[in-house]
């Protein structure tokens, strides 16, 4: 069976700074993987390379067996044109640390935007579906409010609804609770846990170790641009193989 996300020996530099060094990661379809590690390890960058918001210098990234940003001709990889990349992004959605809701649209318009403009769904039908998604994340009573009128937790849940409205097979979550008030983190984590039970492939960059332990099928530790451990949370968090993992875990868990 083809893995949902397959990252093989990916490297990337910004000028002289090496951000990703031979990073490799496999996420099986339908599972939830928590990606943890110290700040600056390259976790967000790796995530953004998966849906080609960032380019890579070497290695390959495949989503359901297909590369998002490149095509292969013999031994060479060429970056694809923008419209083709946009098409390939269709099944991959992202939830952001700073929510990135469209401020000039209401909550429901945000959720409708993808289906209406990318998939060409009619506005009436899209509105009904969007309402369902908002109900699923418990924000339906705020459907006609603007993002500026919502709390952080509500905005992030709208962000999740917006991603879900596109019926993705893979959802990438980039530190989804890091910008939230501690009191609001719980409601978003609950939403995410509920999602992971539905069979969508989820890749979550997070600092919430508790979530990684309780809701993830796999956990990967990333340090200094590379993945040093990957496995079920019971193994990685309790009995890590690498010394650097132990150092990191000692700091966050104690």
């Amino acid at each position, binding site marked *: 069976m083809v893995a949902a996300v397959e990252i093989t020996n990916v490297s990337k530099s910004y000028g002289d700074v090496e951000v990703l060094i031979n990073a490799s990661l496999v996420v099986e379809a339908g599972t939830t993987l928590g990606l943890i590690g110290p700040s600056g390890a390259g976790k967000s960058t790796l995530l*953004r390379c998966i*849906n080609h*918001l960032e380019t890579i210098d070497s290695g390959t990234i495949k989503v359901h067996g297909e590369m998002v940003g490149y095509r292969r001709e013999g031994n060479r990889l060429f970056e694809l044109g*923008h*419209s083709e990349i*946009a*098409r390939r*992004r*269709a099944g*991959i*959605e*992202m939830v*952001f640390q*700073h929510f*990135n*809701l*469209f*401020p*000039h*649209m*209401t909550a429901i318009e945000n959720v409708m*935007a*993808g289906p209406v*403009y*990318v998939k060409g769904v009619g506005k009436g039908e899209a509105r009904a579906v969007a309402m369902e998604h908002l109900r699923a994340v418990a924000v339906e009573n705020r459907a006609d409010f*603007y*993002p*500026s*009128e919502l709390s952080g937790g509500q905005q992030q849940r709208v962000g999740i609804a*917006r991603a879900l409205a*596109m019926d993705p097979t893979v959802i*990438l979550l980039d530190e989804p609770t890091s910008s939230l008030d501690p009191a609001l983190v719980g409601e978003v984590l609950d939403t995410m846990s509920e999602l992971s039970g539905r069979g969508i492939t989820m890749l979550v960059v997070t600092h919430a170790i508790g979530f990684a332990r309780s809701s993830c099928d796999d956990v990967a530790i990333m340090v200094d641009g590379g993945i040093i451990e990957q496995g079920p949370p019971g193994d990685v968090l309790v009995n890590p193989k690498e010394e650097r993992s132990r150092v990191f875990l000692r700091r966050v868990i104690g």
Partner: protein
Amino acid sequence: MKTAESLGSESSAPVFTEPRRYGRWASAAGVLLLSYLIAKSFYTNPFIEHSVIGEYLFHPVILGGVWVTITLAVTAMVLATVLGVILGLMSRSSNPVLTGINRAYIAFFRAVPLLVQILIWGNLSLFFQRLTLTIPFTSITLIDLDTNDVMTTFVAGALGLGLHQAARMSEVVRAGINSVGRGQFDAALSLGMQRRQVTFLVVLPQAMRVIVPPAGNEFISVLKATSLIFVIAGGDLLTNAQNIAATNLRVLELLTVASIWYLAMVAIATAGQRLLERRYSKGYSGDQTSTSPIRMAVQKVSAWLQR
């Protein structure tokens, strides 16, 4: 035990009271007094003949000038905005040909004085006697026109003003686009939107908040810059007023007539700008209460009347 005459009731909570703003009332009175004195000195000036102002305020030549000024300014501004958006988007392209064109355009059209640009368009036939569009390597002619037939004063003025203004608008648009956070691009792209959709559905609507105020300023500049068509015998408001004054020597009176009309046009343009600003601020929180002195005065008076 307090008596009934004592101040304040012991049973009710203190009431929130607006402070008596003596400083504000005094400064308001001062400003009004100053305005009155300035207006009075204009009104009682022996060199200004008020009947002449009244006589020419709705004179057909003046009204014709107002019409030319408005239509020319609006046409030029529409041209400038469309071209400015295209140029502004070009400036953010990764294609060096596009950024090069953008830079060359701005460098040229911002530098050459507007007067010269209008003069050249108006006398374009000195350079190109006919305007033709042919398909290269064939003898098929799509367009063949006499330059002087095409270049009326209106067309020349609109081109001169519009192309010059497009260079300025391009920078305004660029600033607007830059003001939209990177995260907005990320979110729109990750939804699978094509780049054109990202530009027109997500980025430009947000950029408008930053674009509208300086664009409003630019429009008002264009309204006044229309007077430069005097150099190609154009008939805008200021030129017509000055031409009348050249015949009857009533220079100050005619300029006052022109100024009154400019004040009216700019006031309407400003009101339109405020409406646009409000429309593009949907969804943005922030203190929206206006401190317009007229509205507050009306509120105070009606509150006082209702007492």
